């Protein structure tokens, strides 16, 4: 028995070492990982300089792990092992079967006193946040047309009750928004709106992704309409015809790499007149609100108007309507199909320097909506870009 056991140990070990070694060198290298949505490291170039500087030794380690055979399986095994150790957390993502949430938001390029890069801390640089909020105030004071500001909370803020975890700063971020943003900004407190709904079991935020769901977006749409004085034209939930896309695996799941979790459902809320809207993104006709070719890809969220574009415009055929300019991030993508029932829409991105006041006059907008999620507010200082419009 002992002999058998020892022999099996040796054979299994050698089998693993040699078969993976051979498989690694035989299988062609992949360029891109669909699951992780990132390019993979390619074989480093070996030359005298790279070898002697140690650069080669460093790169080849990354190359080995990126191109390792059945990498995805190993990644899942690791996070299963982490769960087994009772960590309920992997790569900064908190785990429960029916909800995942990122808890670490490494800040970079923020308006903090020392301007240094702080990785993987739970800390929020509130001075940076405040600078950005003040620039929204400044924009609101100069803008001659109505402004609505929506700063979607992070998944962890909405879903904290799911986890045995306390956010170090609690709701301080949202308290700061409430305190700082003045009346002219038309600030809508999404946290107070959606968190109670989540806690009552409503599906307002995705389980595996950082965005709100179409239902979540619908509730926000109602608030925006009220805020713009169009409360009477809110379309009741019941009138929509809901089409569901199953098996959506979002960014949070990709980051956490957990082996088991409940997948998401993306909903498209249709009305009979869907065909009458013309959606043009960067000069290209999208053929409607939904780009159906994304349904069968891993990047399902991009089915809302095809993901990131510089500008998107939505008009309704044969109708002359008011124009709403949306200074957007990706949270607005599933909001547009609702708002477009009332307004013509033009979107611009907030990640590049956008002169919102100039854009508003350029597109002859009648109102402006800022949609900028709290995570970006923490991680970057891009919202301060809106203040460029104040300068001119």
């Amino acid at each position, binding site marked *: 028995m002992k002999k058998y056991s020892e022999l099996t*140990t040796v054979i299994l070990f050698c089998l693993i070492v040699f078969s993976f070694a051979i498989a690694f060198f035989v299988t062609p290298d992949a360029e891109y990982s669909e699951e992780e*949505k990132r390019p993979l490291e390619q074989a480093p170039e070996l030359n005298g300089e790279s070898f002697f500087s140690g650069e080669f030794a460093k790169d080849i380690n990354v190359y080995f792990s990126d191109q390792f055979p059945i990498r995805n399986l190993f990644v899942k095994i690791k996070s299963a092992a982490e769960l087994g150790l009772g960590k309920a957390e992997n790569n900064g993502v908190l785990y429960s079967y029916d909800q995942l949430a990122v808890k670490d938001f490494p800040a970079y390029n923020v308006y903090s006193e020392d301007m240094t890069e702080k990785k993987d801390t739970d800390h929020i640089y509130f001075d940076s946040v405040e600078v950005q909020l003040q620039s929204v105030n400044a924009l609101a004071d100069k803008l001659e047309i109505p402004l609505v500001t929506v700063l979607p909370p992070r998944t962890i803020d909405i879903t904290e009750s799911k986890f045995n975890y306390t956010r170090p700063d609690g709701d301080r971020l949202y308290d700061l928004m409430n305190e700082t943003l003045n009346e002219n900004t038309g600030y809508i407190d999404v946290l107070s709106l959606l968190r109670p709904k989540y806690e009552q079991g409503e599906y307002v935020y995705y389980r595996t992704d950082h965005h709100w769901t179409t239902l979540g977006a619908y509730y926000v749409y109602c608030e925006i309409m009220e805020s713009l004085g169009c409360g009477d034209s809110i379309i009741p939930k019941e009138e929509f015809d809901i089409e569901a896309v199953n098996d959506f695996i979002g960014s949070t799941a990709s980051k956490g790499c957990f082996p088991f979790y409940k997948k998401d459902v993306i909903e498209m809320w249709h009305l009979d007149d869907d065909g009458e809207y013309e959606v043009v993104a960067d000069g290209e006709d999208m053929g409607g609100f939904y780009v159906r070719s994304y349904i069968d890809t891993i990047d399902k969220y991009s089915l809302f108007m095809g993901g990131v574009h510089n500008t998107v415009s939505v008009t309704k055929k044969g109708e002359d309507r008011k124009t709403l300019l949306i200074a957007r991030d990706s949270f607005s993508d599933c909001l547009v199909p609702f708002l477009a029932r009332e307004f013509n829409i033009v979107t611009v991105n907030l990640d590049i320097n956008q002169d919102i006041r100039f854009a508003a006059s350029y597109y002859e907008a009648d109102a402006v909506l800022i949609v900028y999620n709290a995570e970006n507010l923490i991680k970057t200082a891009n919202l301060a870009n809106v203040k460029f419009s104040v300068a001119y």
Partner: protein
Amino acid sequence: MVFSSLIFIFAYLAVTLAVYYVAPLKLRNLVLFVVSLAFYGWGEPKYIALMIVSILIAYFFGFFIEKHRESNKRRAKIYLAISLVGNLSFLLFFKYYNFFAENIGFSVIEGLTLPVGISFYTFQIMSYSIDLYRGEVPLARRIIPFGTYVTLFPQLIAGPIVRYKDVCDQMEGRKETVSKFASGVNRFVTGLAKKLILGDSAAAIAELLERNGEFETTVVGTWIIMICYTFHIYFDFSGYSDMAIGLGRMFGFEFVENFNYPYIAKSITDFWRRWHITLSTWFREYIYIPLGGNRVSKPRAFFNLAAVWFLTGFWHGADWNYILWGVYFWVFLVIEKAFLGRLLKKIPALGHIYTLIIVGFGWIIFFHSDLSAIADTAKQLIGINTDFASANIGNTLLRLLPFIAVCALACTPIPKRIFEKLQERLSPVLAIKPIAVALLFAVCIAYMVDNSFSPFLYYIF
């Protein structure tokens, strides 16, 4: 190259094992010598020359020492001295030059990097020269087996510090067997798991808490950091020794043990019999006993012990905190010798707690080159100007408890004993064992594969 990397296991080890076992018996030492040099040169090929010079010095002066050992003791001693000085000078220069220069006021040499493993292999080489002079080992007549002993890749980087007298018989007369190989595999995988799963996790937790400590420092938090350091260094270092011993067995070697459950020690004296055993042995054999050990006058014995602990600290790194770390242990050893040891023997539980706290704080000294940071940490541990806890750290503690429990258990002989009992009573355990080891190996591979995972761009916007 570290053992816990994919490139080591799936490129280096795969090739080495294949070539080694295909090669005829006669050439096997040469194979090990060549691949070990390649291992050593990986990333820093220039230091291969240094290594070869070190080997040649010890090798050639070995002949002189041997020749004059019986006839002219003085001459033999001179040759020994030359050989030792030659080897030590490399260590002194590369490891300590900048430290001395900085403290004396000479100009520091920029970009002077420490050759990998120099502290370890220098000591190994010296053990040969000294033992040869003492007539305790035979002369190494052939350069390849001797070179192989010095460069042998399993113990090259981080020990165990294998003395020549412990392995000289194995250099030319070892036998590779299935049984040895299998136990090598078990040992290697255990070490890998200790480092990757427990050690690295503990390190990551300590790092995170330290960074968060910039914003919120609590007594509980500082204690958790200390505990994580304690686990980190043990699982990392003893895991590395396990891997080294395991790899050695795969090639037919049997190295001496380096750790013996140090965290179950009941006094500091006991701890140092269990921690990094090969280093303590080296200092005892080649420094402490030659100085007279404790069979001398009291003040002299006091000095001898102090010298050994100063050197032990300094060996770990060229900085004041390492010296402090060595002297710190010396103080406790002296106190234990004077009276505390007898007291602790009566209350073993107290001795255990005392040892863990002293050792734990030792790691704080070990990890902080900034002496004022050490003082701050000491204050935080006992609550001077520090809040006891916060809601946040309370939650962190709760989340970490299972992990800390697993680590604590893994520091004791209990898992091994349970396993051995099971093996005795239930014969299927023996049949399942290889599969369990293979699965654990797969988990370790997973930890190495997922090391580089980083979030992607879509996430930002």
